[in-house]
């Protein structure tokens, strides 16, 4: 507190910096855990950590305003590599960490999974350290499956569709299936459907692929599943909080969502059905089971920070093996291979969830949205056919329109 107040001036620049590290973090279980562990870091390093905590969108806005202005009052920033990573790196908001990641052999940068670190690398230079990884899995209600006479979770998307329809038919008050429906927010959870049908947002040649046969089938399938077996009066604005609420209120049997949110479903304080939740690998489509496997959050250093050395000290501690293990034991999947290999690292996950994650990391795809600079805009374009399919419009025609728009977007961005 005391030292940060007199910042701003030209004093204390460079390596020595202030002994206060200003850290901006998103609302997440990871953040709650790290805040609890902070006294330990402050004691061993002699530094003081000031945490600013914000919701995802507010965090984004905060960065847009402060980093645009070249502000130095953020040292460490928690950011989404796939959402903002390219933009931030291109704008030179993220400091090059090439030297730091090599400095400490014990910390061991090579221990991080290759997929996630690829997403935190820009033009060959590491600009962030992944802290949370995510795979899409199938959440389901054991009791409802049993009631419907099903003895196992669906292994294919066709089985999922049949099971969801059966459960909804038996009790119209309970949806067979729920998932995100908002144009932009649904894109990431739809991506696993897209890959499992054999499609992707962009093809190998860098052209838009959202009107491929596979993509059209995937759009129609995802939208149709929600339209036919989803909640009555389904809204087209649902993000994970809304979809999760329907599932945890006991109003849906199946739910495809990021595994990193599983505590919301299994914690009795948050979920009415906590004792009945099961997990399964993402069901296979015509192209097999291909869920995304991505780093959802990473830590970076603000390039305009005057306190980079201490900022790195914080990152080194927060992403170290001990902290990663502690995080993972409290339910946050990390990016360190050694922690996943350690039986202790998966000891607190429900057994079926750990199995589902293991399956996903083998077949997973390393992105869950188009890999472009202007991600938000691209998500709105490729997400349009999802909401059109949910509201009963022609998904194929909508995919064609989205394809034209997306190709134009890609051309503009390549210029």
């Amino acid at each position, binding site marked *: 507190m005391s030292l940060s107040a007199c910042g701003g001036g030209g004093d204390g620049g460079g390596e020595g910096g202030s002994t206060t590290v200003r850290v901006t973090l998103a609302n997440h279980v990871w953040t709650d855990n790290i805040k609890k562990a902070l006294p330990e870091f402050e004691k061993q390093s002699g530094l003081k950590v000031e945490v600013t905590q914000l919701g995802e969108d507010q965090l984004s806005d905060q960065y847009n305003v402060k980093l645009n202005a070249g502000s130095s009052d953020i040292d460490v920033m928690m950011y989404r590599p796939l959402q903002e990573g390219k933009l931030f790196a291109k704008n030179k908001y993220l400091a090059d960490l090439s030297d730091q990641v090599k400095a400490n052999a014990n910390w061991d940068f090579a221990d991080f999974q290759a997929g996630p670190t690829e997403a935190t690398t820009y033009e060959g230079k590491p600009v962030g350290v992944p802290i949370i990884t995510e795979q899409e899995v199938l959440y389901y209600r054991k009791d409802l499956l049993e009631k419907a006479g099903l003895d196992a979770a669906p292994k294919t998307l066709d089985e999922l569709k049949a099971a969801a329809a059966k459960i909804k038919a038996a009790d119209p008050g309970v949806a067979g299936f729920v998932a995100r429906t908002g144009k932009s927010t649904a894109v990431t959870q739809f991506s696993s459907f897209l890959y499992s049908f054999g499609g992707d947002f962009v093809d190998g040649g860098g052209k838009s692929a959202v009107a491929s046969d596979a993509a059209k089938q995937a759009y129609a399938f995802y939208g149709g599943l929600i339209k036919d077996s989803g909640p009555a009066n*389904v809204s087209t604005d649902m993000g994970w909080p809304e979809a999760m609420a329907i599932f945890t209120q006991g109003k849906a049997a199946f739910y495809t969502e990021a595994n990193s949110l599983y505590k919301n479903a299994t914690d009795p304080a948050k979920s009415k059905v906590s004792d009945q939740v099961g997990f399964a690998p993402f069901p296979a489509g015509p192209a097999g089971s291909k869920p995304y496997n991505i780093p959802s959050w990473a830590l970076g250093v603000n390039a305009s920070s005057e306190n980079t050395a201490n900022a790195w000290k914080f990152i080194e501690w927060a992403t170290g093996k001990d902290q990663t293990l502690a995080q993972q034991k409290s339910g946050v999947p990390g990016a360190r291979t050694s922690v996943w290999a350690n039986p202790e690292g998966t000891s607190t996950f429900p057994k079926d969830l750990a199995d589902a994650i293991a399956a996903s990391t083998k077949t997973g795809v390393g992105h869950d949205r188009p890999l472009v600079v202007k991600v938000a805009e691209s998500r*709105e374009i490729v997400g349009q056919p999802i909401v059109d399919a949910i*509201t009963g419009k022609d998904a194929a025609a909508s995919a064609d329109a989205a394809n034209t728009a997306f190709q134009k977007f890609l051309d503009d961005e390549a210029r």
Partner: protein
Amino acid sequence: MATTTTKAPPGAAATPATPGWARWVDHHRKWLFAAPAMTFVAALLIFPLAWTGYLSLTDAEGSVRAESEFIGLRNYLDVLTDVERFWPAVGRTATFTVVALLFEVVLGMAIALLLWRPFKGERWVRVAVLLPLVATPVAVGMMWRLIFDPNIGLANQALGWVGIGPQPWLAGQHTALPTTIFIDVWQWTPMVVLILLAGLTSLSEEPQEAARIDGASTWQRFRHVTLPLLMPTLTVAILLRGIDALKTFDILYATKGRGGGSFHEVETLNVYAYGLSFDYNEYGVSSTVLILFFLIIIGAMWALTTRRKEAQR
């Protein structure tokens, strides 16, 4: 400076010993006293506006610190020919403002007339009527979002009790905008009540009494005595509330999020400009929309004030 020393102002020349700087200060008093306020206005109003105007002529995107090119009026051409996002947003802004304002003024007038005359428990009723005004819009948005939830919300349950089927409310492509207008009316009618009530209380009793003696009915007294006398206050209420309604952002953002919903169903100009800067990082285009929006507000204000001057004549 030197020019001011040649001739002392009449009356002020009493003490020839006054040093030059003091006379200079004396001479420029009105500017010097106003300077802090003027600097403040310049820094916080004119500079941002000029900067936005400049950005609107460039292709700035990604970061405002990145290099951008001066492209003249191309953004304006693009925006003014954009029938997918810009013009629908203009339409929604106009619909939202006009409809909300209409309800707020009519309801506000009715409630103000009811509260005008003293009655028992008047104070409590006034407090109750004014309560929505003091709630923060984001909290209001969250509250109504829960009430209007299509599956678990109170609104549909209440409809169920009287035998009406569930409505999509905020979730529907065509019902979202009317629902947000309803929320706006709920929150801001009290402000109109407050202004009109202040106007009513300051009216003198004589014209009313004269009209009553002449045998005018209640409606006639309202139409031909109260309303004309209240016109200046009413215009102020419309002006203040209208500008505010045009600029509404918080309620729309809190209920429908970014982009005004999956079909942009409540995307007004303000929400659109916000999305352009914070989601798309298109600072050039966003500034263009904001400048156009600014002109629209000035135009509306100008129309209303000239109308007011005419009414006063």
